[in-house]
């Protein structure tokens, strides 16, 4: 037919900027400024307190970076808290016999192996990850209680404690160094590599991703193994910071981790993920907790206010989006 009647088909040229996608940053800035003003006299802004926030959120942040990948593939990992507990113990035990390196290998290895089991059950046996990791959370917690009969295992190795606990690089606490390191790696992997793309595609529409030749099972497996391994890493940080392994470490952490991830803007239904958002989600929660404690609220008041802030933070942002 006559080529002149063929017009171009146009849609909006550029994706519009939507501040609602940045709600976690806005909420963080809002909360931070509020506390800086109201709690100035209480030392909220002191270097030490700011470092406290960073230190206190390090474990959640690091687990949350890996869980961002898991959730981006539309799966979930509820076992991270238990893994952290068990890894703190295996690391502490290994340190006694094999020193620092042994401790590190044991901590990470424990996490990676459990993550691998999770991953295989999800991708090969096709059990929903919610059930796999819920079951695993219970099993691993049981193992953590069992291996030392609930007794804590002290850590006396200074190198380990320096690296994963109280050490600092110049003025920067090691815990912060680790957080930044993991966050940067996570961000780059998710945004700049094929694997990141494959992760988002798998979560966005698994069958379409498979049609495109993506090995979605492999993607999920890797995400779950990483998440196990990062939980193991967090376990080492708990251990380093409190100079002991203990089965209660990380208790309930899975909910904080998922909250940080979702608050950051990753979709629980997969396909959309952001590591930077996750880190801010985690720090937002940590800052709220810190500020409210400094304010001198008792536990019940802290809970009421922090729950409210979380809901409000998102309420302001979500008007447009459905999920």
């Amino acid at each position: 037919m006559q080529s002149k009647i063929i017009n171009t088909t146009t849609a909006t040229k550029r994706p519009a900027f939507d501040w609602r996608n940045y709600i976690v940053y806005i909420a963080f800035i809002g909360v931070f400024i509020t506390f800086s003003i109201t709690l100035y006299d209480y030392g909220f802004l002191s270097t030490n307190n700011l470092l406290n926030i960073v230190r206190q959120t390090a474990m959640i942040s690091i687990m949350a970076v890996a869980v961002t990948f898991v959730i981006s593939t539309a799966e979930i990992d509820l076992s991270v808290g238990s893994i952290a507990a068990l890894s703190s113990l295996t690391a502490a035990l290994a340190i006694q016999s094999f020193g620092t390196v042994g401790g590190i290998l044991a901590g990470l290895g424990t996490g990676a192996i459990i993550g691998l089991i999770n991953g295989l059950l999800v991708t090969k046996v096709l059990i929903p990850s919610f059930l796999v990791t819920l079951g695993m959370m219970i099993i691993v917690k049981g193992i953590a209680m069992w291996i030392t009969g609930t007794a804590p295992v002290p850590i006396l190795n200074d190198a380990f404690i320096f690296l994963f606990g109280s050490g600092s690089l110049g003025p920067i606490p090691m815990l912060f160094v680790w957080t930044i390191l993991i966050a940067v790696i996570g961000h780059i992997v998710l945004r700049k590599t094929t694997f990141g793309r494959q992760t988002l595609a798998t979560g966005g529409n698994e069958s379409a991703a498979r049609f495109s030749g993506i090995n979605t099972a492999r993607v999920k497996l890797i995400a779950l193994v990483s998440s196990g391994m990062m939980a193991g890493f967090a376990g080492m940080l708990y251990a380093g910071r409190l100079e002991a392994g203990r089965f209660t470490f990380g208790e309930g952490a899975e909910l904080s981790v998922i909250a940080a991830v979702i608050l950051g803007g990753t979709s629980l239904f997969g396909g959309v993920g952001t590591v930077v958002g996750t880190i801010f989600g985690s720090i937002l929660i940590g800052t709220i907790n810190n500020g409210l404690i400094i304010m001198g609220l008792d536990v019940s008041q802290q809970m009421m206010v922090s729950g409210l802030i979380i809901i409000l933070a998102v309420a302001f942002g979500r008007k447009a989006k459905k999920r």
Partner: protein
Amino acid sequence: MTKIALRMSEISKSFNGINVLDHVNFELEKGEVHALMGGNGAGKSTLMKILTGVYQKDSGKIVINDKEIDIEKPQDAQENGVAMIFQEFSVIPSLTVKQNIFLNRELKKSNGFLDEKAMYVQTEDLLKQLNVNISPDMLIENLSVGFWQMTEIAKALAQKASILIMDEPTATLSKNETETLFKLIETLKSEGMSIIYISHRMDEIFQVSDRITVLRDGKFVITSPTAHLTMEELVQHIVGKSMESSFGWKPRSYSKEEVMLETKDLHSGSKVNGVDLHVYKGEILGIAGLMGSGRTELAQAIFGIDPITSGEVFVDCQAVRIKQPQDAIRAGIALVPEDRRVQGLVLTHEVKENIIYPILNKVSKSGFINKKKVDQLSEQFVEKLNIKTDSIYKSTNLLSGGNQQKIVLAKWLANEPNILILDEPTNGVDIGSKSEIIEIIRELADQGKAVIVISSELAELLAVSDRIITLKNGKVTSELSREEIKSEEDLEHAIQNH
């Protein structure tokens, strides 16, 4: 070197004991466009999915470039140079156009990281070839289905495959984009690419294909050069018996007194910008327009999906406030939506469940569903619309595309609306059923309903409409009585000009 790019021989496949492909043979020459034809559920998509590794054949042989190969997963197909434009999209809504086009074949910089710039530039080029002017950074989920389709096409093209399968690529495209695509196909052909083309639009087949293979009920019927077949012969092969086409328009008579639906200066979002239209009782109004002209948005505004920002809707001369679909349904309006998979069906649910969703109140008494009524009704519609399914309990995602479309139609026919809006109602429906559907639409109008048909297939629009309006930028640009339109070109000009 032979000139055969692909040979599939004696391919069989069954699902849950039901034979879907029965010793099918198919052969593709290098540089040819080979049309694969057949009724809904004949097995076309299944055959192609076997070729691309989505499904595995039960028996048979696949030879590509003289080498017998095993295709077990999509990667295997890709490695053998096979790419496919899927009937149900394989784009990821939460990713951008660019990310989708380069999915799993991302360009990388020397340091191993993604080369976003290069991908952006190449995407722009591809889109330009396709005459599509959208930003490579748009999220798919923010685009209308037409653009999904264009992205899907661009994605397949970018693979530089030697065998390209197009499963109903034009189903959501209007004439404009279709022409662009055909030009592209010519170019690809001349570069030696072999193309398998699936469509239910007969005129396209004759325009674009070199040879045709027909399947019927999972069995091979014939392979023949296109030039050796007439339209009638082809239809006969597809449906299994000779059949007169209902594509000829027959004047219908209805009184132009009772206006059943009217809109005045209707605005909605940025796509509907002051639409005045009216439909008489017993009339079939066609709406034509380019992709993005706002047809779908107009229909969605009337039906209460998109908020009406200003203007009014009248039903039987009474102003009605429509804020959500329930309001529209209460006013007797029904909408058969454009995108059957996203808007039309709960894909994981059964046929009968989907059919009753709009009529839950009619099949229930004080909130309790009458199971018998449901079964009867669904059986009745499965029969009436010739829906090919093992049973009314089959999950709709296991039906062929055309049969899914028929269920969306059935849903709204079952509701017995007074005003029926059909947005691309025959999208993916086979030639036999298409005439049946046109027949059904006419019957409904004869019964005194007002019908609006939105279609990008002009032949169909001309066959069914009593009057046609054209839309551009969300405004009515012309109104033509059917008698004024002498040919498709007339309508084409009405759409393009203004």
